[in-house]
C-alpha cells in the first residue's frame, strides 16, 4: 500500500506539474490526493483488523466452550461406563456417590449453557428486564446460605453485613441473582484457603450499594482495564484456577448497566479485590 501511495504522489506531481504552472497549487493537489489515499488505506486496514479480531474471538470462543463442555461430558460418560460395565464393578456403597457426580457435572454444563444464552441475548440486544418489587437483602441472604458450604469446604469465611432497615427495590430478581451469584462465586474461587469474603449492602440516597470484599489473589494492575471484557481471564487467575469461561463479569456488567446501575472494583494483586454495584431503588 505504501508503494501505491508513493507512486500516486509522484504520478500526480508529474501530471499536475505539466498542466499547472503554480507550484503551490501542484503541491496542494499532491497533498490532497495523498491524504485521501492515506485515509482509504487507514479505513481498509482497520476493517481488516476488526475482521481478524472477530475471527480470533470466534475461534477462541469455540476452543473455550468445547473444552468447558467436554470436561463434564467426559466425567458423565466415564462414570456411566463404570456403572454399567460388566467387567468393572463399582463397589456397592459407592453407587450413590457416582450418581451425585453425574448430577454435579450436569449442573456444570447447564450453568455454562445458561451463561452462553445470556451472552447471546446481550449481543443481540434482546434481553428483557422483568422488574418487580424485591427485597435484595433476603435474596443475598439466601445466596450466602447456599454458598456457605462451598466456602467452608475451601476454608474461607463468608459473611454478610447488611445495613439495617433497607428498603425494597424495583428490579429483576433472577438477573440480580445471577450477578450476585457470579460475584460470590468469583470471590470464593479466587481467594486462597484461610481467607475471607465479606458482603455488605447499604443505601445511599436513591440507590442500593452492594459490596463484596475478598482477601484473594487480586487483579494485576495492567490487566484491570480488561476485566469486564468477554472471555478475558487475568493471567494470575488462569494459573490458579483453569476452569472458567471469562463470561461472568461481562454478564454482570451488561445486566447492571441495563438495570440503570453501575459496577466497578478496587483491587491490589496479592491483597484482594472489592467489587461494587449500585441499583436504583425505584
Amino acid at each position, binding site marked *: 500500500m505504501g508503494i501505491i501511495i508513493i507512486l500516486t504522489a509522484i504520478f500526480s506531481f508529474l501530471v499536475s506539474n505539466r498542466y499547472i504552472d503554480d507550484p503551490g497549487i501542484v503541491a496542494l493537489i499532491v497533498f490532497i490526493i495523498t491524504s485521501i489515499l492515506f485515509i482509504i488505506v487507514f479505513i481498509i486496514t482497520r476493517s481488516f483488523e476488526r475482521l481478524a479480531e472477530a475471527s480470533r474471538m470466534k475461534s477462541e470462543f469455540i476452543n473455550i466452550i468445547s473444552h468447558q463442555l*467436554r*470436561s463434564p461430558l*467426559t466425567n458423565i*460418560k*466415564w462414570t456411566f*461406563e463404570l456403572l454399567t460395565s460388566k467387567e468393572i464393578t463399582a*463397589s456397592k456403597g459407592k453407587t450413590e456417590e457416582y450418581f451425585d457426580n453425574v448430577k454435579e457435572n450436569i449442573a456444570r454444563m447447564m450453568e455454562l449453557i445458561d451463561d452462553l444464552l445470556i451472552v447471546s441475548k446481550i449481543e443481540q440486544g434482546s434481553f428483557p428486564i422483568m422488574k418487580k418489587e424485591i427485597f435484595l437483602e433476603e435474596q443475598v441472604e439466601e445466596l450466602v446460605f447456599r454458598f456457605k458450604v462451598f466456602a467452608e469446604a475451601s476454608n474461607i469465611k463468608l459473611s454478610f453485613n447488611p445495613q439495617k432497615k433497607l428498603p425494597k427495590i424495583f428490579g429483576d430478581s433472577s438477573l440480580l441473582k445471577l450477578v450476585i451469584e457470579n460475584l460470590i462465586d468469583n470471590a470464593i474461587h479466587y481467594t486462597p484457603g484461610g481467607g475471607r469474603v465479606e458482603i455488605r449492602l447499604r443505601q445511599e440516597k436513591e440507590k442500593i450499594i452492594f459490596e463484596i470484599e475478598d482477601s484473594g489473589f487480586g487483579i494485576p494492575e495492567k490487566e484491570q482495564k480488561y476485566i469486564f471484557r468477554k472471555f478475558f481471564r487475568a493471567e494470575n487467575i488462569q*494459573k490458579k484456577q*483453569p476452569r472458567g469461561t471469562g463470561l461472568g463479569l461481562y454478564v454482570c456488567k451488561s445486566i447492571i448497566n441495563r438495570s440503570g446501575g453501575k459496577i466497578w472494583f478496587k483491587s491490589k494483586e496479592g491483597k484482594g479485590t472489592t467489587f461494587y454495584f449500585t441499583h436504583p431503588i425505584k
Partner: protein
Amino acid sequence: MKKILFIEDEPTLQKTVGDILKQESYETISALDGETGLRLAKSEKPDLILLDLILPKMHGFEVLKELKISPETKEIPVIILTNLERMEDVDKAIELGATTYLVKTQYEIKGVIEKIKKAIGEPR
C-alpha cells in the same frame, strides 16, 4: 504393587479412574494440581504418571518438562490424558517426552485402562 500417579484436577475423574485402577490392583496416588503432582512424582517415584494438561498452579506441559529434566523422574513413562486435541499440543507433548497422548472424549474408560496396562505392564 505397581504405583500410578494421577495428576488431574477433576475430582470425578480422580474417583472413577482411581477406583478402577485400585480394582485392577494398582496403587494410585492422586494430585489435584500440577505443583503437587510434580512434588509427589519426585517423592513417591511412581511406575507411571497419568497427566492432564489444563491444571491449576502449573500447566501440564511445565510438569512434563520438569519430569523429563530431573534425573530421578525422567525414566517414568507419562501418559497425557486431556481434552485438548490440537495437533500442536499433541506434537509438543511427544516432543517433551510423553509416552502416549490420549484425548479423553475419544476413549471409553476401558480403553484408557488398557493403554495404562500396556505402558506399565500387569500389576505385580
